[in-house]
């Protein structure tokens, strides 16, 4: 297992160790018994097998006593497991921790950090895509949501995995005890871009985190706000960064090389192309990007579409 960085991961690793010791010993014993029987009781000329039906305690105990041992070990594991599970899931969930919101969508993770006021849904919130920043040694209380289909928030180093469901907010917590950058993945199949749904967890000291937050808080314009709400910005950056899809910056009016049914051709990015690509994103796929965008047909009304075109025009030139 990769190094553990969470407060409860140690317990989970100990449980894993316990199960491993018990089950490996049992497995080796059982296989040994099996192979012993094969070697010891091979057919030999003139041999006669014993008529044993397993009726009555005298015979049945040869099966039932080992089974009793199995039951005892099962209960040992059960007791340990219930304790660890309750520690992680129920008893110690903090009422007030550092709040973050984690939103899964096809095919990216969006993270909402509280600004300096340490509260979500205030104007100083900082929204990022593909990067979750949390403070070291703080209980992080997360709200997990999904925009479209099931996703699963999976951080191997935290020993944390939780499904995200559309239409529901799932509360949970973790506490990172080591600074560094770790992988976040989606562990529930969510579509063609499932394997692109990576992100980073950045654990840093509270002071460093505050400095980072301060550098990030820039309010969004109206067009950008709409695109953010629709989830577009999770895959399409506005600053030229390459994500799952092409960046919006410098897109308008550009000659793009696209693949149409596997054939390369040149297309100018204009209103018609944008409209077509919203309705049928996999028809003309920009070269170098995977054909995974879900259709947005009917998701933008005329006004919102006009806002999008306006926004793309404003991003035509690099700042």
């Amino acid at each position, binding site marked *: 297992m990769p190094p553990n960085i969470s407060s409860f991961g140690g317990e989970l690793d100990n449980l894993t160790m316990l199960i491993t010791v018990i089950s490996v010993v049992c497995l080796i014993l059982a296989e040994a018994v099996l192979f012993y029987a094969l070697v010891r009781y091979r057919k030999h000329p003139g041999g006669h097998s014993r008529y*044993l039906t397993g009726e009555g305690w005298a015979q049945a105990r040869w099966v039932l006593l080992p089974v009793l041992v199995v039951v005892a070990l099962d209960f040992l594991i059960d007791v340990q497991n219930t304790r660890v599970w309750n520690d992680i899931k129920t008893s110690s969930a903090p009422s007030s921790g550092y709040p973050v919101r984690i939103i899964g969508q096809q095919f990216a993770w969006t993270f909402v950090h509280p600004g300096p006021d340490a509260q979500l849904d205030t104007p100083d919130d900082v929204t990022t895509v593909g990067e979750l920043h949390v403070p070291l040694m703080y209980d992080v209380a997360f709200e997990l949501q999904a925009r479209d289909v099931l996703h699963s928030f999976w951080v191997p180093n935290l020993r944390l995995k939780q499904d995200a469901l559309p239409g529901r907010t799932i509360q949970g917590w973790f506490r990172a005890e080591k600074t560094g950058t770790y992988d976040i993945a989606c562990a529930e199949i969510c579509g063609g871009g499932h394997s692109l749904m990576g992100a980073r967890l950045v654990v840093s000291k509270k002071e460093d985190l505050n400095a980072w937050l301060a550098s990030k808080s820039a309010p969004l314009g109206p067009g950008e706000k709409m695109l953010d709400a629709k989830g577009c910005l999770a895959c399409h950056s506005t600053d030229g960064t390459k994500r799952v899809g092409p960046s919006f910056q410098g897109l308008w009016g550009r000659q793009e090389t696209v693949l149409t049914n596997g054939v390369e051709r040149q297309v100018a990015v204009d209103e018609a192309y944008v409209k077509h690509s919203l309705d049928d994103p996999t028809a003309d796929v920009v070269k170098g990007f995977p054909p995974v965008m879900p259709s947005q047909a009917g998701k933008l009304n005329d006004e919102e579409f006009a806002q999008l075109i306006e926004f793309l025009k404003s991003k035509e030139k690099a700042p």
Partner: protein
Amino acid sequence: MIETVVHAPEELQKEPAHHEPEHHPASFWSRYVFSTDHKMIAMQYCVTSIVMVIVGGFLAYVFRWQLAHPGVPVPLFGKIDPNIYNTFVTMHGTIMIFWVAMPLLLAAFGNFLIPPMIGTRDMAFPTLNMLSYWTFFISTVLLLASFFVPGGAFGGGWTAYPPLSADAYARTDFWHGLGGDLWILAVALEFVAFLMGGINFLVTTISMRAPGLTWMRLPMVVWMIVIATLIFMFSVGPLIAGAVMLLLDRVAGTGFYNPATGGDPIMFQHFFWFFGHPEVYVILLPTLGFLAEIFTTFSRKPLFGYKMILTSTWVAAGLSFIVWAHHQFIAGIDPRMSTFFSITTILISVPFAVIIFSLMATLFQGQIELPTPMLFALGVVAEFLIGGVTGIYLGASAFDIYAHDTYFVVAHFHYTLIPVVIFGGAAAIYYWYPKFVGRMLDERLGKIHFWGTAVFFNMIFLPLFWTGMMGQHRRIFSYEAFPSLNTPLAHNLQVVATTGLILMALFQIPFLINLVRSARHGRPAGRNPWKANSLEWACESPPPHGNFPTQPEVYRWPYEYGMPDSAQDFRPQWEACP
């Protein structure tokens, strides 16, 4: 051993007229295609499932190649993209469970074995039996056709969790095609086919047993198939309802699983796993039955603990209905519910421990021979122990937080399913082939087949436990987006696994050759080549239409081997004198 034989009422001896062997020469169609003979129907199920295992295996080869050599075109297939990858992963699971495991273990061997083992001429409803196969055949055609419709086959995982699978509102547009609808239809039709088959299994066993064949004299394999049929019937109903709701969500625009209209996507997971876990035992029980027959025959000893095994099976069948949510520990269900399901899950290991230990105890102080069927049967136990032990890991809900949907899970359930389906199926085929074809399979090819399969099977899945422990999650086209999971070690393990798969596939070729060649050139088997006790060995090999020339009578249980008072080490069920 003292038993009273109670004779059946007179009417049992009188068979209905349509059971009489036909005296006019049957045409090709009525003999091989629309046959109502249980043996021909079993053969049809068997052949279909062997064809499907080749399809499913090829899919596995394609996506495993991608995992080992990302981006390199697959030999014999070509380039693969993430959508094809998802499709193949989904269809591999669907095919292997529903079109290989169930038709081979339950349908084919249920049909082969039940009538001759209980001493009757055919199933209670032969026409229904034929209908069952042809419904199954149509579902197979639908499933295969879905590969060729626009948009391709279904790719939302074999568990088909909505909203992804109910794309009317999720707009995952590359699967909006017919593929998903065909998938649901095919699976639903297949369930209907097995429900029809199940009627026969149950009714035939309850009402058509030979005189003297009491419940406690029934061969264990018949018990197991009947219990599996019952489990299947009681668990599949909700999923059929759930599948109809999913189909309506897709084609009619209803919102049963749509959170936006108040629906609940988790509901489908409950439907699926309420069926899905009992389904595991539907597949497992027939193989445990095969083991009981094969172990006793080749160790020349009675079955150890017949009643213990039977009681445990009923207990396990009951428990299997209250463990389903262990597939959903991290799906957002109430944590207290998880504690309950974690305990039931770990408890279910107890009856299976009883069964496996009893089977192992059957070997002790026996006279063990090791022909191919026995090798495969022993392989089931040896490998299944690994699958069972790793199940304890996953039943522990806290560890499952880490392991859920990783390769650890993949390796675990392959360590249960491959021993049960591939090893168990092979053991049964090697054991009963002489009966139903009339000729022995070649032992040398059989042993090559066994050792190749056993060695390379471990080569595939042992590395995957490791990559799962490292955190690699399943259904991932490429790990490029996750640097810490994309290590050289993990990649090398994936290469080992893929190489193992290719080699294991190659070692199935001797088996196929053996099946075809021995049908013509094998040594004639005679009635009872293994010197076994149960009733099917009283028939000619292969049994004629109607199986028995006269109604056989049963005088004892089928495990009378190695009696202390006799020079002969077995005493068949049908022989009157002690």
